[in-house]
């Protein structure tokens, strides 16, 4: 979509450089003149927010790594030294720890936006799958990062999650011993987790570049789900979307500051301020909030191997979503029945998260099973079947028409540009 670069350097140095490495032309065609659908709403700003969060996490993380000691006997103390004696160390650590949560808030909005507006449908399947890979890498990175302070929840969370791999028949025990670097979670585990926690963000960065590359081949989806028809449908990235993204990012940063500076431990666990102790098990072992829905799915199933399969399957199934959804209509805005199932799915995910924080007993187990069943039913029953029966609403002829209120289901379209999906239907 970016096509041939129209960038023409003005200075002599610019011309000299561009003829040897046309990187300024690449930036120019990708982030200056790149055409975006003019009707993108604020849910489309989360891609930029995520890019910012990745860089922010890498910057704070690299500096934290200068002060952190990855050793079972010293890690907990080194984190406290960062909090107390490193200049603004408390700020770095709180920004980094809460930054992980903000990263996940943004990625969940980003994913649900894709699910609602059908961003995974042809020709954006590879773009979507790259996104799922990024999500998986993020989860691995965040999990290992939470182990590094070597508190009680670090240690026992690592024990529970690494033990899951022992459910794999045949090779499970071997895999677990490689993860641990021994026969239990101990110093070698902490060392390799630190190494991988430093490595994975750069792998994320690599896949993000592929993700943006794939995005720029077909361009962004948009709230109508209609592909570009004429140039009237589009606006250049700069200044229209740079200023919009900057505004959204600034609002997002306010939330980030609220958490990181005012309630920095709200999203953590008190138990993680107790140093890891292999002899004392915390009363509830709970992962970080962003893993809770998947943790609930794991525990909803009484068999260990099946539970592990269900948990990993709940993420893996997203890879095939482009082929599970039979509807020709991309955007949920024109799918009245889909909207009901979609919002049920979103609420269901939140309830799963809440159930994941509860002990697996009584009422909670039954609820977890119902919610797990709906989670998978959405993918394997609702998406394939709904497209066959649903009568979509009438649609505008083009993106420009949707913005200018011509054709389609008039009143609903007037708010097309800036409204959230929740105001529809």
């Amino acid at each position, binding site marked *: 979509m970016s096509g041939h670069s129209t960038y023409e350097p003005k200075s002599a140095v610019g011309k000299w450089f561009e003829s040897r490495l046309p990187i300024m032309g690449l930036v120019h065609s990708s982030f200056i003149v790149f055409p975006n659908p*003019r009707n993108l709403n604020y849910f489309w700003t989360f891609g930029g927010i995520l890019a910012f969060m990745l860089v922010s996490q890498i910057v704070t993380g690299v500096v934290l790594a200068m002060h952190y000691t990855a050793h079972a006997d010293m890690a907990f*103390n080194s984190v*406290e*030294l960062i*909090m*107390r004696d490193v200049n603004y160390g*408390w*700020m770095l650590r*709180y920004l980094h720890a809460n930054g992980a949560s903000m990263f996940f808030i943004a990625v969940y909005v980003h994913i649900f936006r894709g699910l609602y507006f059908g961003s995974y449908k042809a020709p954006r399947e590879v773009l979507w799958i790259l996104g799922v890979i990024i999500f998986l890498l993020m989860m691995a990175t965040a999990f290992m990062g939470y182990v590094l302070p070597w508190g009680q929840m670090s240690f026992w969370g690592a024990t529970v999650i690494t033990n899951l791999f022992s459910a794999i028949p045949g090779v499970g025990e071997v895999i677990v011993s490689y993860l641990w670097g021994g026969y239990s979670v101990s110093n070698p585990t902490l060392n390799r987790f630190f190494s991988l926690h430093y490595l994975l963000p750069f792998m994320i960065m690599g896949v993000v570049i592929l993700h943006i590359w794939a995005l720029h081949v077909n361009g962004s989806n948009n709230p109508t789900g209609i592909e570009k028809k004429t140039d009237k449908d589009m*606006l250049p990235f700069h*200044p*229209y979307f740079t*200023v*919009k993204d*900057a*505004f959204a990012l*600034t*609002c997002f*940063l*306010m939330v980030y*500051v*609220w958490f990181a*500076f*005012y*309630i*920095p*431990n*709200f999203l953590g666990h*008190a*138990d993680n*301020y*107790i140093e890891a102790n292999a002899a004392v098990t915390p*009363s509830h072992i709970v992962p970080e909030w962003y893993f809770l829905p998947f943790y609930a799915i794991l525990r909803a199933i009484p068999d260990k191997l099946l539970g592990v399969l269900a948990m990993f399957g709940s993420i893996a199934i997203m890879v095939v979503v482009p082929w599970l959804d039979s509807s020709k209509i991309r955007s949920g805005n024109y799918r*009245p029945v889909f*909207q*009901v199932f979609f*919002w*049920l799915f979103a*609420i269901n995910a939140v*309830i799963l998260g*809440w*159930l994941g924080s*509860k002990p697996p007993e*009584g*009422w*909670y187990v039954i*609820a977890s099973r119902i919610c797990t069943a709906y989670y998978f039913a959405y993918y394997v029953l609702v998406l394939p079947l709904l497209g066959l029966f649903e009568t979509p609403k009438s649609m505008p002829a083009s993106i*420009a028409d949707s*913005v*200018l*209120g011509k054709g389609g289901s008039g009143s609903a379209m007037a708010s097309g*540009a*800036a409204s959230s999906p929740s105001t529809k*239907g």
Partner: protein
Amino acid sequence: MKSIKTLIAVLAFAGFASGAALAQSHEREIPPRVNWSFAGPFGTYDETQLQRGFKVFHEVCSNCHSMSKVAFRTLAEKGGPGFSVEQVNALAATYKIKDGPNDAGDMFDRPGRAADFWPSPFPNKLAAAAANGGAAPPDFSVIAKARTYERGFPWFVFDIFTQYQEQGVDYIAALLPGYEDAPAGEVVPAGKYYNKYFPGNIIAMPPPLQDGAVTYLKDANGKPQAPETVQQYAKDVTAFLMWAAEPHMEQRKEIAFRALIFLLVFAGLLYFTKKKIWANVEGHA
């Protein structure tokens, strides 16, 4: 469509609420809320309270509890109890610190310095456990952040906006005076005590505070700064523990406010810039 969505929302809320009610039915006693000076967006430590709390810690708690990540020097740093450097040097000098080896290869004792970390009352965890009926007294460096009680739905959602994050200190301030006779039928093992706020109620620590056990500084009228009661001791020492766990809290909250004001103004400017730029695009406001 609206009615279906409303129905979904009502069902979801009902599910949440009933789950929350179920969860609350078998919970331990909720500690009462204390009106802490350091709570909220503009919260600061009360210097005199931290000094009183330090006195309680120094004279009572530190006989058994370590605070190994807190250095003497921090007692004189900004945003803390506000002791003078001389006071801190004098305090540190009252402790003997094992140092070495010296040039002869021997370990030796020297008087403490401001740069030293708070010396632990026992040489190691096992010694601490052996001297205390098998349960090592926990370290106090971050204990104010290491204790909590469950808020449950929907309270934890409100806490985001009210910034209520003093669960740990509320719990500690309730626990210290929270000893009472065990209810009929409850067996308390020998050497253990009954505390209504402790998880499981059976606690190894004997009641640590008694009325009048610590003498507070007198004000101009010759009266103590604060009542010399168990309740007051508990609050003061808990405030001190909060500072010990979070010595840069005042600076953090100051920066938070400045950062938010900056972001708010910046977001406003960006909003109007965005409006201006988009104004010439047909169909957009």
